[in-house]
């Protein structure tokens, strides 16, 4: 793979036009699995969330999870799809040890939702991504291949299988080919997945954690020479487990395919694997020796025939969609496009909204989340939402500043205390003694001491050099360990020195 030649991205784009296709799998956050009563939670000890049905013991039968069907219809509606009035599950037959039945219950030519779209925004431009289908299926178990160099089944000593994941409801969302992306193809691919992820969250149907595999993305890329209109052969890159990887995988495939085509070579239709460490893709199974899945309608399940009235009630119960909501919030907050984009990129919108809801001014909420807290999250290498502080606590800090109880410098210490687990903002203020010194007597005594200790500076001020008061204010702040109100200290110093501005 190290010998692979790449073409510079700019050159590839000059000569070829990319066509994208995205297949996203979302694990639904239902309480139980798709076809049995087992818990569908992530992270249980291996093979503890299993039963005769999801282990495919002889004689067991599936029963469809109605909540999963409902979630799939809601996803379809949110993606502007048509909902089938009658459709069936189908069996997809192939042998693999992590698939207990050696067939997957999926949908084939009768998906639950078809013909929709999702608008995504890239660089201020709205791109409409057309959705071909949304269907419901079951997840497989998880294989771990032990002893090989690559972690793949080839070359492994042995493999172990955890069937906890087998049978978790999985929704597959497939786009139509996305044309006309031009050089923004990587960004559009990323923005699509990001928007989809936010949509799933807004619908409350999945926790969409890419790192845990509850949102998985396959990226199809092909190139066609500029000036032609016949699509090239596509590759399907799997194992793309973060938004950044989506972008990198598309870019890499464009560079790789560009080099092959420019050299007169031909693209092999195949599955490729993305590698986080190198940003490269490597060949997997070739689709030219195509698997025949021998699909046929699942005889163990009855057809799905959603009542149109029920579908309409689901439609009217849809939440505000993410893009619409962002527009509304921008207006309510009076935020700039740039501010909104940076909050969006930092996944801060929900946090800011919750902080505003808890009483903070929008500008203050944004300032703390995007400033001090973003810095701390960055240092810790974690996401904002993972910080050990709640929007209500941030709102309380904003209120303290607004009341003058703490200044910005103290507020940062309050935040630090909360993040360190010292308690809520009020507790941290109490324990660390961070309240601004507002007792005039105490402040006056500190000032007298500072004037006495800095006679030269005091003289300068008395002599009319008012600017020299800065050193004295600094001394007061230092002596009070930052708790003095600097403005009030300045007034008092000038008064004591008999100087007026």
């Amino acid at each position, binding site marked *: 793979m190290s010998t692979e030649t790449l073409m510079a991205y700019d050159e590839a784009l000059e000569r070829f036009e990319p066509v994208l296709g995205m297949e996203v799998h979302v694990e639904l956050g239902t309480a139980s699995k798709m076809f049995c009563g087992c818990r569908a939670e992530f992270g249980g000890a291996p093979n503890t969330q299993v039963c005769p049905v999801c282990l495919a013991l*002889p*004689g067991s039968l599936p029963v469809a999870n109605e909540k999963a069907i409902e979630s799939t219809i809601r996803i379809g509606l949110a993606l502007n799809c048509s909902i089938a009035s009658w459709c069936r599950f189908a069996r997809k037959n192939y042998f693999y040890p992590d698939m207990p039945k050696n067939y997957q219950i999926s949908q084939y030519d009768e998906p639950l939702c078809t013909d929709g779209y999702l608008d995504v925004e890239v660089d201020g431009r709205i791109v409409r991504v057309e959705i071909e289908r949304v269907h419901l299926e079951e997840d497989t178990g998880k294989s771990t291949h032990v002893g090989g160099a690559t972690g793949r089944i080839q070359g492994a000593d042995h493999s172990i299988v955890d069937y906890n994941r087998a049978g978790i409801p999985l929704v597959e969302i497939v786009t139509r080919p996305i044309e006309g992306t031009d050089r923004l193809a990587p960004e559009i691919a990323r923005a699509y997945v990001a928007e989809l992820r936010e949509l799933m969250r807004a619908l409350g149907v999945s926790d969409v954690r890419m790192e845990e595999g509850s949102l998985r993305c396959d990226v199809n890329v092909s190139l066609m020479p500029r000036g032609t209109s016949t699509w090239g052969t596509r590759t399907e890159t799997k194992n793309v487990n973060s938004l950044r990887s989506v972008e990198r995988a598309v870019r890499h495939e464009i560079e790789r395919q560009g080099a092959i085509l420019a050299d007169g070579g031909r693209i092999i239709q195949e599955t490729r694997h993305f590698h986080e460490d190198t940003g490269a893709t490597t060949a997997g199974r070739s689709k030219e020796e195509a698997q025949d899945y021998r699909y046929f309608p699942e005889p163990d399940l*009855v057809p799905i025939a959603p009542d149109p009235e029920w579908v309409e009630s689901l439609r009217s119960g849809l939440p505000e969609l993410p893009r619409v909501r962002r527009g509304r919030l921008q207006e309510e907050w009076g935020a700039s496009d740039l501010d909104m984009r940076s909050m969006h990129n930092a996944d801060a919108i929900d946090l800011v909204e919750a902080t505003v809801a808890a009483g903070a001014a929008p500008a203050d909420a944004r300032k703390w989340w995007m400033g001090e807290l973003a810095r701390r999250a960055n240092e810790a290498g974690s996401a904002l939402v993972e910080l050990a502080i709640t929007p209500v606590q941030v709102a309380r800090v904003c209120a303290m500043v607004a009341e003058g109880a703490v200044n910005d410098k103290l507020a940062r210490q309050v935040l630090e205390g909360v993040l360190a687990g010292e308690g809520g903002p009020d507790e941290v203020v109490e324990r660390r003694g961070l309240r601004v010194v507002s007792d005039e007597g105490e402040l006056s005594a500190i000032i007298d001491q500072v004037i006495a200790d800095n006679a030269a500076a005091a003289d300068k001020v008395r002599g009319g050099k008012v600017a020299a008061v800065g050193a004295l204010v600094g001394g007061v702040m230092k002596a009070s360990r930052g708790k003095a109100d600097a403005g009030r200290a300045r007034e008092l110093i000038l008064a004591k020195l008999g100087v007026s501005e």
Partner: protein
Amino acid sequence: MSLIRKSAAELGALLGAGEVSAVEVAQAHLDRVAEIDGKVHAFLHVAAESALAQARAIDERRAKGERLGPLAGVPIAHKDVFTTSDMPTTAGSKILQGWRPPYDATVTRRLREAGLVILGKTNLDEFAMGSSTENSAFGPTRNPWDLTRVPGGSSGGSSAAVAAYAAPLSTGTDTGGSIRQPAAVTGIVGMKPTYGGSSRYGLIAFASSLDTPGPFARNVLDAALLHEAFSGHDPMDSTSIDAPVPGVVEAAKRADIAGLRVGVVREFDSEGFQAGVVARFHETVELLESLGAKVVELSCPSFTTALPAYYLIAPSECSSNLARFDAMRYGLRVGDDGERSAEEVMAMTRAAGFGPEVKRRIMLGTYALSSGYYDAYYGQAQKVRTLIARDFEAAFHQVDVLISPTTPTTAFPIGERVDDPMAMYLADLCTIPANLAGNAAISIPCGLADEDGLPVGLQIMAPVLGDDRCYRVGAALETALESRWGGPLLSKAPAL
């Protein structure tokens, strides 16, 4: 009369009245099993200890004054295709030899709840694929009427057990005739309920859209009692019908057919059928008329295409259903030497674990579902299925039930058809249409063929959820036939 000759209803009454204990009844049947099963080989597993324990428990409950159902304490033989948590379950296959299911099939659970005492598990064609029980990996079962002949199949162990007085009742499954055909060739009653009327949960699947659990008994009322005991909606089986079970016991007791409209299926009359079968069938038609039924002949043209359609649909579904037997989680594992890949172990296990008929059907089905062939085979077969359902519908506008011989011939000799799958498949010619359409159908004995003295079966087919009609007509005919014979047909069987 000895306990083993009594009907289930009679045993239930004796048990209820305290005239006999469940332990005595179970012991009498276990003794019979010990006496004859060396010759018949109806059982793959005899659960003497657990049967006696169950029987004791029933006796204790009754002693405490508990009110129990009509079959509490009555013994039953259970087809070894239903999972049982306390007995091995093999489906007649080496690939499941030694497997102990961790759960009971819904039918098993309901047998237990009704207080039926499970004597053991009965032999069958491997994965219920066959019409003679010769495809069992554990050796054939013999017909109690003539030990050189087959007891039918796939539920041949269950039919032989009842015909040999080893149990008054047994369970079967009917995918293309696997209850009705064995009942016919052993001279007993076998019922295929409406598809979805009895639960498939825990029934090891052959063809999901066809498999139907049903009862065997020596008379119509007993079959109805067992039918009622294990049928009804099951939330664990999505294809199970959420409707009350038709009043089958009441229908079996009512047994009147005056004014009944009966249709004779022209397509299943005489041509290619054994002369003795045709003769008994025609006599039965006359008997029906003499009992006040109005008999008409009518045509169901698509029934002639049922057999080929069935041999595409059933193998297609089985090719997928049997994919799970891969050596990974349960059952046989061959060739796992630490070097071979999972794929190689799977292939070696399946090669060693499945018998030739199962392999034949897996290959047929795999081919029929293949891309490029699907429309011509599986798709076309599904269309035939629709046509058959329409023929039934049209027929049931004119008549209340349809009748035909259950099988074209009486029991054939063991070994005769093992190398001729087409001849074997023809045994299910008349029974398959009801499977493809999901209808109810029963087989009752209607006499002995003159040329070989072996039992002939009459098939009575009713609409979906019209199971009660099968019992009503069956019981009326049974009464008339037995008065003509001077007793049950089975009493004419030679002693074992």
